[in-house]
């Protein structure tokens, strides 16, 4: 009886204990274990994966607008702008947004209306716009990259007038090259994304590009700005500017003359020319042909290349690559006889020859059983004469006297093996036989510049070292890098890489090379009033009969400041001019030098004979008596012709103050009316200097001779004239004619 309730209450107590125990367990699980799991998971997400997830968040929450940094400007040596960035606007559309707009009832315009108008304004096809509008998954389809401002404004007006949303303009930068094709190979160009692709634009990309700025704005899922401002600015930093050693004037003369001879001699593979400051390595000008317009770099400009594309023998891409190549350093060539300068310098330095060395040329020489012919049979020659005649056996002998090892060492010391190291992209490396395989016969060929390849830039750097006192400089085109405040970040330091030969040896080399121009194969390279040293070169290209003709010269010959190399690749053989460096390249070099030397402030020093023909200022004699006037003109070395029979000079041609060549004939009017009629320029090319003078005077014009005046063979004649035959010019105009010898052998 008592047992039952006891057991029952015992059961209840037990049940209560179970409840208590289980509640406690549930409490721990519900209150602690479960939430510990959540906390661990949160730690994983918010700490361990924080960066990854935050990046995803920022990607979708922010819209960053780029603030384009202005790309650095490229200046020439005198501060002229060669490349500059200007504002342009890129037009793009958001197909997604346009599709949404088109669905709206209040939209009044149609797809076709929009496309046709944009096509008209932007000068692109309507189909391409409609195609882009189809891509409704996209929010960014570019219609026109970097449209000019007036075009951009027209688009803006059109969009506003028709209340169109979904087409946008973003400010961008466009690269302009004010000089077009001038120095195109050096400057290079930028691609669609404004990054440099060629030339300095590519080489100095890091300095020029600057840092794009960013404006980051928070946006909601629809792309609208969030309710509260969240904006972050990262300033754009404009790119650094480059100041080049290139002088636009020098470059202009270089390119003008190069283009002229390429056309005149129909050089199949173009040409290159370099003007180097021999005492610093600064490149004052560097031209390559064919060239192209930097503002339209995709268009093939050269007619020959265009023809090849039209004929289907070459693709547009290949021809573009051709015209973009800088032959001065992207290509190598066999230098031929201009390389004898190096052989001469090394042999003189090593003492294997002296200025008194003589050589008897028999017309050929046998090396290791191989007969090598000369351009002629020069008989007995002094050292200077061997250079002036460009005598191959003589130079082979000098080379062999040096021996393979020494010769090879000099080529290395002159920087020919390693390349010039110029601060431009894509410098090719020369091609040489390995030193261990370098035989006597190889040496014999190398001694007169055959059987190996160098770049023109590496060659001219080595040749400059031969005449500047022996110092090898690394050629360069960037003088300074300036930041956007104009402070100098980098200044080129012209310290010689090494001294290869002594000052004395260098002086001897100069003496020999001046003789080459005054009395040898280089006489077409003479420039009136200047002492020029130089060397011609005509290199065989394999066994094809094709040649590379070149001329390297420097001035003043006694204390060189600049050096010029002109090389013409594969000129035609049927132009009437013998395809040689002396006949083709030297006159061009002379023409270039006669223009750039005065420009560079290198003063002419005339010989007594030259002084007579030197430019003189014509005095004003109007108002003077005829007797007085004629006396004055005579005194200055001018001839005169009197028209009319008065006593007083009423007018004169040319007018007073004009600088005209000495010994010119001045027309004095004594009462007679000065004729206004224009004179027709006669054809002077091919005439002897005397014939040309008569023809010019008869036409009422004055004449100025440049180039060589002496010739052993007596074949000096006018090679070119500054005014085309047949053009009308005012009376008294000075026609400059280039004299030269068309039959130089090397």
């Amino acid at each position: 009886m008592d047992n039952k309730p006891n057991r029952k209450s015992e059961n209840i107590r037990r049940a209560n204990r179970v409840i208590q125990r289980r509640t406690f367990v549930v409490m721990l699980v519900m209150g602690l274990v479960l939430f510990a799991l959540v906390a661990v998971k949160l730690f994983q997400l918010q700490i361990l994966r924080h960066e990854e997830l935050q990046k995803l968040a920022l990607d979708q929450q922010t819209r960053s607008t780029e603030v384009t940094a202005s790309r650095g400007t490229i200046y020439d040596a005198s501060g002229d702008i060669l490349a500059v960035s200007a504002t342009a606007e890129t037009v793009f559309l958001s197909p997604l947004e346009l599709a949404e707009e088109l669905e709206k009832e209040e939209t009044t315009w149609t797809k076709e209306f929009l496309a046709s108008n944009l096509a008209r304004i932007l000068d692109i096809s309507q189909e391409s716009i409609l195609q882009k509008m189809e891509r409704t998954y996209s929010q960014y389809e570019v219609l026109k990259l970097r449209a000019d401002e007036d075009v951009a404004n027209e688009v803006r007006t059109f969009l506003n007038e028709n209340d169109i949303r979904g087409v946008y303009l973003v400010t961008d930068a466009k690269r302009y090259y004010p000089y077009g094709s001038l120095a195109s190979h050096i400057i290079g160009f930028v691609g669609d994304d404004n990054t440099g692709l060629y030339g300095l634009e590519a080489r100095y990309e890091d300095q020029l590009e600057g840092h794009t700025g960013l404006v980051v704005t928070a946006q909601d899922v629809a792309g609208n700005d969030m309710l509260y401002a969240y904006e972050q600015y990262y300033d754009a930093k404009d790119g650094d500017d480059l100041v080049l050693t290139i002088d636009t004037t020098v470059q202009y003369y270089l390119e003008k003359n190069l283009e002229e001879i390429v056309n005149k001699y129909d050089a199949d593979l173009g040409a290159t020319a370099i003007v180097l400051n021999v005492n610093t390595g600064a490149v004052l000008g560097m031209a390559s042909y064919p060239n192209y317009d930097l503002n339209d770099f995709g268009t093939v400009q050269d007619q020959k290349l265009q023809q090849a594309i039209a004929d289907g023998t070459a693709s547009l891409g290949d021809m573009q690559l051709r015209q973009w190549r800088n032959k001065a350093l992207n290509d190598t060539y066999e230098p031929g006889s201009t390389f004898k300068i190096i052989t001469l310098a090394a042999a003189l330095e090593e003492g294997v020859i002296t200025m008194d060395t003589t050589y008897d040329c028999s017309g050929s020489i046998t090396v290791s059983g191989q007969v090598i012919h000369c351009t002629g049979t020069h008989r007995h020659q002094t050292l200077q004469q061997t250079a002036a005649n460009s005598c191959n056996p003589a130079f082979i002998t000098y080379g062999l006297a040096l021996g393979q090892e020494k010769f090879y060492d000099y080529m290395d010391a002159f920087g020919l093996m390693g390349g010039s190291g110029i601060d431009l992209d894509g410098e090719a490396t020369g091609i040489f036989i390995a030193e261990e395989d370098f035989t006597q016969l190889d040496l014999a060929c190398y001694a007169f510049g055959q059987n190996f390849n160098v770049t023109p830039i590496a060659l001219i750097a080595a040749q400059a070292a031969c005449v500047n006192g022996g110092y090898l400089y690394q050629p360069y085109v960037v003088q300074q890098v300036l930041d956007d405040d104009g402070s100098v970040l980098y200044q080129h330091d012209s310290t010689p890489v090494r001294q290869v030969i002594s000052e004395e040896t260098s002086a001897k080399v100069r003496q020999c090379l001046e003789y080459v121009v005054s009395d040898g194969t280089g006489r077409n390279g003479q420039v009136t009033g200047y002492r020029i040293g130089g060397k011609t070169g005509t290199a065989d290209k394999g066994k094809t009969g094709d040649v590379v003709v070149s001329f390297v010269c420097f001035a003043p010959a006694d204390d060189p400041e600049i050096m010029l190399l002109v090389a013409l690749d594969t000129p035609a053989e049927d132009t009437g001019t013998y395809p040689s460096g002396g006949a083709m390249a030297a006159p061009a070099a002379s023409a270039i030098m006669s223009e750039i030397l005065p420009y560079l402030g290198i003063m002419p020093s005339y010989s007594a004979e030259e002084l007579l023909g030197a430019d003189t200022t014509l005095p004003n004699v109007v108002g003077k008596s005829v007797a007085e006037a004629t006396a004055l003109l005579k005194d200055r070395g001018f001839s005169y012709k009197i028209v009319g029979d008065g006593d007083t000079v009423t007018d004169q041609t040319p007018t007073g103050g004009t600088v005209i060549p000495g010994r010119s004939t001045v027309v004095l009017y004594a009462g007679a009316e000065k004729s206004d009629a224009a004179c027709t320029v006669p054809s002077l090319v091919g005439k002897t200097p005397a014939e040309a003078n008569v023809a010019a005077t008869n036409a009422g014009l004055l004449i100025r001779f440049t180039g060589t005046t002496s010739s052993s063979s007596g074949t000096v004649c006018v090679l070119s004239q500054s005014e085309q035959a047949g053009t009308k010019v005012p009376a008294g105009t000075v026609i400059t004619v280039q004299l030269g010898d068309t039959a130089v052998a090397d």
Partner: protein
Amino acid sequence: MAQPRSDRSQHRRETERKNLLAAKGGAWDLPFLLLTLLLTGIGLVMLFSASFPSAYYESGDAAAYLKRQAVWAVLGLSSMVVMGRINYHRLRGTVRLALYVSLFLLVLVIIPGVGITINNSTRWLGIDGVFTFQPSEIAKLAVILYFADSISKRKEKMEDFRQGVLPYMVILGVFALLMLLEPHLSGTILIVGIGVMMMVIGGIKAWLVGLGFGGVGAVALLYVQLVKAGIISYGAGRILMWENPWLDPQVDGYQMVQSLISIGSGGLWGVGLGKSRQKFLFLPEEHNDFIFAIVCEELGLIGACIIILIFVLLILRGFWIALQARDRFGSLLVVGVMTQIALQTFLNMAVVTGLLPATGISLPFFSYGGTALALQLFEMGIVLSVSRQIPAPRKG
């Protein structure tokens, strides 16, 4: 012999009942009250922060959601105070009614044309846009009340399968069936979870508890494995997106990816109160089921953990009250209520953080939903009522 005995026990029961009802009770449990008020306050602040972009875009009034929620919070707090002052034993008289009413409402909601359908689920009753509520919320309370009453009476009989398990299984089965018809999976999980937890604590056989949890665990594991093996396709998307939402970040995985991005971008300190950027329509449901993601983004790991800590303290205090309760009924009532809060909080956070596959469970005190908040506060009132009758510790 039976008569007087019956009279006597009846008399005793009635006296007991009178005593119970007459008990004035002591003070409310202050820590529990303060934690409840704290959570309600923080919840409202976070709701405002999370909802203002949506509110602004939808109605132009950035505080639109806050205003409605605040009204319900006031109503809820009032009901909590009233309930807290009422002797919880009086609830015993309402348990059957509550059960029938909630069953009636659950039936009503699935009758076509009566319930309000959102996202293919018919879970709401009322007038759309003015006043709506989920009958399942009421059902949870009804189950808590009925189970507490019933289980507390059965005492040791709970060990008997036919008496202690079967009837409750049937009731839960009916509720679950009705809610699955809506369909409302998360509500079903919650109501079954609450019911089972009360049965467990009520004293059903230990081996049944083990079998039950083991069985559910095994089925869940098996299900996940079968889905992964491609044998079962029902709910496969949900499982796959849970495993790796980045498989389809634009459509199926969008909600989950956005939630993880929100949480992750918060980092240790958060982007700052009110400064969430994910709430600008990137994260859907940012003021409802996924409000915790915004909390994590704005307040960081530190802030989120503080809020979790407050929840934990509330739950621990709640269960402490259950342990100290005057009788089994009070204890079970509190267990039911706290289980609901704990399960719902955990499941919500687990879903938002990707611990568990996505299902729509709101976060107590935080998520937008006026009736739910008011009911939760009313339930807090029940706990407070129980806390008032905790016997004073015996002296000596």
